[in-house]
């Protein structure tokens, strides 16, 4: 496997930003009550991480180390504001649902983490791959959580009332209110981490 492909695939599995690096937990609890916002959030974060990685990597030799965090923050903020403006103009419903969380991408540890750890010391192309990989790694967990939480919490998938169509309510099935609350997302993340570590020897701590 080439080095760049690895940069994309690693964060999906054994170097996942949420389950292994344990970054970006806050937003992953907040936006995963339903599948659609989870998906849009995943997409937005992927775009922001990839582009900010790319830009910072291009600039990396010109950035004075003393103000590098500020420069990174300016680049990330600019991108996030752009994403937010575009969402408001073209997918207004989704931007309403995500409300403040889009703005909070700026404070998502994954973004700053990748800039500091990778883009500052790697070439643009590799940085772009790393950004996409980490965005997808974050996104895949969000989508798993969104899927489970929407299905069992609201009985719908992407707004489609699947439980009702299956006729489960008629035989006494009830939606689980706990699944919708943020703590359940944390428990689910814990379960994913458990499954991942028990099946992957490399990740187990002695």
């Amino acid at each position, binding site marked *: 496997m080439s080095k760049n492909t690895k940069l994309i695939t690693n964060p999906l599995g054994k170097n996942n930003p949420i389950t292994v690096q344990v970054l970006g937990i806050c937003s992953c609890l907040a936006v995963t009550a339903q599948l659609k916002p989870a998906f849009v959030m995943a997409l937005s974060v992927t775009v922001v991480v990839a582009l900010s990685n790319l830009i910072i990597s291009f600039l990396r030799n010109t950035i004075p180390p003393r103000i590098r965090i500020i420069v990174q923050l300016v680049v990330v903020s600019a991108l996030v504001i752009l994403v937010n403006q575009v969402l408001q103009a073209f997918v*207004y419903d989704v931007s309403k649902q995500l*409300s403040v969380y889009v703005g909070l991408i700026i404070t998502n540890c994954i973004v700053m983490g990748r800039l500091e750890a990778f883009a500052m010391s790697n070439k643009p192309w590799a940085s772009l791959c790393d950004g996409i990989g980490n965005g997808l790694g974050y996104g895949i967990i969000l989508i798993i959580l969104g899927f489970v939480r929407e299905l069992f919490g609201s009985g719908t998938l992407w707004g489609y009332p699947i439980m009702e169509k299956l006729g489960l309510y008629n035989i006494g099935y009830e939606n689980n209110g706990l699944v919708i609350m943020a703590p359940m997302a944390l428990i689910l993340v814990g379960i994913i981490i458990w499954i991942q570590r028990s099946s992957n020897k490399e990740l187990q701590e002695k």
Partner: protein
Amino acid sequence: MKNFNNKYIFLYATALVAVVAVLLSVVATLLKPQQQNNIKNEKMQTLLAAINVSVDRDDAAQAYSQYFTTELTVGTNGEVLSVYDVPQQTLTQGETRAFDIKLKEQQVREREGKQGAFPLYVFEKDGRKGYVIPTQGNGLWGAVFANIALDADLNTIIGVTFDHESETPGLGAEITTEKFQQPFIGKQILDEQGNVVSIAVKKHADANALHEVDAISGGTMTSNGVSEMLAADLARYQAYIAQARNAETQQASKPTTSNQESEKEASNE
């Protein structure tokens, strides 16, 4: 590691910020019409939803001018501050169009003891006149909104829509569902003397009672917020409603002459 002198750092930071500022302002300016259009259409869409007309957001503007006839702004003493004719798209009285009023600002003005102006939308559907009152209050986490559509008697609710900023999905956010909104229909906001008593959202509400509906289990704070919002915002129209209903009964009992009309107007002031 390369060494950068202070001058370089200073210039670098300045240039970066300038570039970003220009870029963002250009994008914000370009996208602004689209965004405002979205907000405007959404508002029309929710007003239409209150009178049971469901349309796509893109068709909202057209449907709005089809069903809504007049937008009024009303002061808390019942005085009409402005009149906007929807089909003609002209202000026939006053300066501000009710549609452009920000409810929150007016509520704040009123709290500060100043004169507030509150919107009242008049519609005509299937040949029957009615009114929509927009309301805004606080739920558990953020603002909650509602549009209350009243029948021509300014009393009986014929439709409602609720919306919220950030209530808990599955709990407080359930106010947007049909299950919560349906029981409002047929309730009355006035008591027998014609005073605004609003609708209370409470546990174990009596389905036959005229002034209460069932709260959401697990969404008590949001339900209380909705109750308070309705009580506070509907009460602002008390004076207007009383006048309008008086005028209606006068009209019904006596044949209207131009003389009486002007008398009535004089007494309104």
